[in-house]
Structure formats: structure tokens, C-alpha cells
């Protein structure tokens, strides 16, 4: 009898507070599994700002640091520069990273900081009750775009991975999705590559993950997966935008 899958030792025994079917939990598992597989859990430090992942320090079996809204890349920069032996990563939502934290993420990439960013794009501010984010799609109804987002009022959704891929210091940029077992496996591979890049000291790496927010999308978890496929994937194409070979 071989074990095909069991809960990762990179996670604590705490039960996740996320809503049923929220893919934040899926991504938490992947990050934990990768840190174990790379054997760096005991020297890794995760930095989480605000958002539904704000309680992640209870879930990851490694040191964690809270940061204020959008500032995780700046805090991570400090931690990494003081102790380069540490494996430092940020875990940020789209309301956090693409809005109030837009400057921090651009400049962490610009400086080529040797950290890894896990970026959860669920097209909404989840924690605060479903407001429009820079990543909210055209026509998407949120509590602050009740008739649907319009280009006239709010512009077009920000493509973070494409934007960061233009910056030289960003050595690994990939957009993935956790909508199916195959894509979850690909997401894990991308997260692993981003961490490996940090370990080899090449520069900044970010993985943008298309994710669901069933509660604020007002859909069942299963319908949320379908909504992600039908609406997010066409606008946010999956794929690698920058890898070390190409970035040289």
C-alpha cells in the first residue's frame, strides 16, 4: 500500500477558515508541499498582508510575518536582505497586490529581489465583502460595480503577469489556474520553479494563480470553477511569460 496523497507536513493541524470550496486552501497546500519537497520549510518565511489569507500564519508550518495592506514585498525585501539564507515569499490577493500594493510589487521586481510571490487573482476583494478589484472583469457585478464593471468608469482589468514580465528583474513570471487536477499539478510545478529560482539566486519570481471566491461571486463552488474557466481564462491566458532562460 503506497500513500498517493495525504495532508502536507508543511501545514499545521489547524482547520482552514476559508469558505467552502475556496481555492485559497488549494494553493496553501501547494505552497506547503513545495517547501517540503525542496527541503526549505525550516528556513522559509512567508509574508502575508491583509485579505482572506491574513490568517495564514496559523496554517503554514514555518515562520510567518504579517505585513500591512500591499506592503508584503517591502517587508519581504527587508527579511531577505538581512538574512539571504532564508527562503522568503509573499502570498498576496489581487486587491492587495494590484491596487494599494502596485508600487511595491513593481519595485520588488524592478530591483530583482530574490523573493517569491504567490499572487491570488480571484477578480475581487474577498475579505472585505466583494468590492471591485483592478482585476475585476468587464461586466462583473460586485458591491461597488452593481451594474457590472465598465471600461468608461474603471478601465480594463489589469493584467499583472504581463505587466511584470516587462521588468528585467522579474526572472520568472507565469500565470496558472487551480480549476482542474491537471492545472493544479501545473500550478505546483510553477510554484516550485519560482522557489528554485530564488534558491539559485537569479532574481524575482511570481506565480499568478486564477482562483475562485464562491462567496462573493455568489456562486456555488462548482459553478465558480465554471465561471473561472468561462470568464477569467479567456481574459487572463495561462502560460509562462518569463523564465530564466528567456530572461537572460
Amino acid at each position, binding site marked *: 500500500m503506497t*500513500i498517493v*496523497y495525504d495532508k*502536507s507536513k508543511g501545514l499545521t493541524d489547524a482547520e482552514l477558515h476559508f469558505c467552502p*470550496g475556496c481555492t485559497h486552501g488549494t494553493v496553501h497546500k501547494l505552497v506547503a508541499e513545495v517547501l517540503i519537497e525542496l527541503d526549505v520549510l525550516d528556513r522559509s518565511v512567508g509574508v502575508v498582508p491583509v485579505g482572506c489569507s491574513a490568517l495564514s500564519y496559523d496554517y503554514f508550518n514555518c515562520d510567518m510575518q504579517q505585513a500591512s495592506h500591499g506592503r508584503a514585498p517591502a517587508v519581504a525585501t527587508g527579511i531577505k536582505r538581512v538574512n539571504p539564507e532564508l527562503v522568503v515569499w509573499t502570498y498576496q490577493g489581487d486587491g492587495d497586490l494590484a491596487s494599494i500594493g502596485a508600487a511595491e510589487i513593481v519595485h520588488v521586481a524592478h530591483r530583482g529581489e530574490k523573493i517569491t510571490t504567490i499572487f491570488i487573482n480571484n477578480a475581487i476583494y474577498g475579505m472585505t465583502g466583494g468590492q471591485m478589484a483592478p482585476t475585476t472583469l468587464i461586466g462583473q457585478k460586485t458591491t461597488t460595480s452593481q451594474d457590472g464593471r465598465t471600461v468608461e468608469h474603471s478601465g480594463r482589468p489589469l493584467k499583472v503577469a504581463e505587466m511584470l514580465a516587462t521588468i528585467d528583474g522579474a526572472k520568472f513570471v507565469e500565470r496558472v489556474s487551480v480549476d482542474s487536477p491537471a492545472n493544479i499539478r501545473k500550478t505546483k510545478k510553477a510554484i516550485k520553479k519560482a522557489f528554485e529560482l530564488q534558491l539559485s539566486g537569479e532574481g524575482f519570481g511570481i506565480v499568478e494563480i486564477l482562483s475562485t471566491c464562491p462567496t462573493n461571486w455568489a456562486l456555488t463552488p462548482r459553478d465558480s470553477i465554471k465561471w473561472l474557466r468561462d470568464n477569467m481564462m479567456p481574459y487572463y491566458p495561462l502560460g509562462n511569460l518569463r523564465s530564466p532562460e528567456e530572461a537572460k
Partner: protein
Amino acid sequence: MAKGKVTFNTDICKGCELCIDVCPVNIIVMDESMINVKGFHPATVIEMEKCIGCGNCAITCPDSVIKVERF
């Protein structure tokens, strides 16, 4: 075909049903005969002998409810 065995940590299942859609042999259902401590009908397997131990259900579960073994 490989044989698999799945075990559910029933108490922490949130009844999201995401595991149902990814099972290639369609053996996962929600157990409507019980309600767990969280107040959900938890996921369970019917016809365990059909399980191929692919791991899809466990990989997909956001809450690490499922353990999969293969023999």
C-alpha cells in the same frame, strides 16, 4: 487497473462538492444520511472497489480532507 482506497476526515469536510466532479470513476457522493460537526453533508465514496487511486479528489480538496492510498 490499480486499486485505490480513500479516507475522509469527515469532521472537517465543508461539503463543497469539488471532489465529486474530478473523480474519473464517479464514486464520490455527498452523504445525505449524516451531518458533520460543521453542519455539512460530508463527502463519501460508494463502491470503493472501483477506486483507481488517482488522487484527483485529494489534490482538489481545498481542506485536505482526503487521504488516498494505492495497492
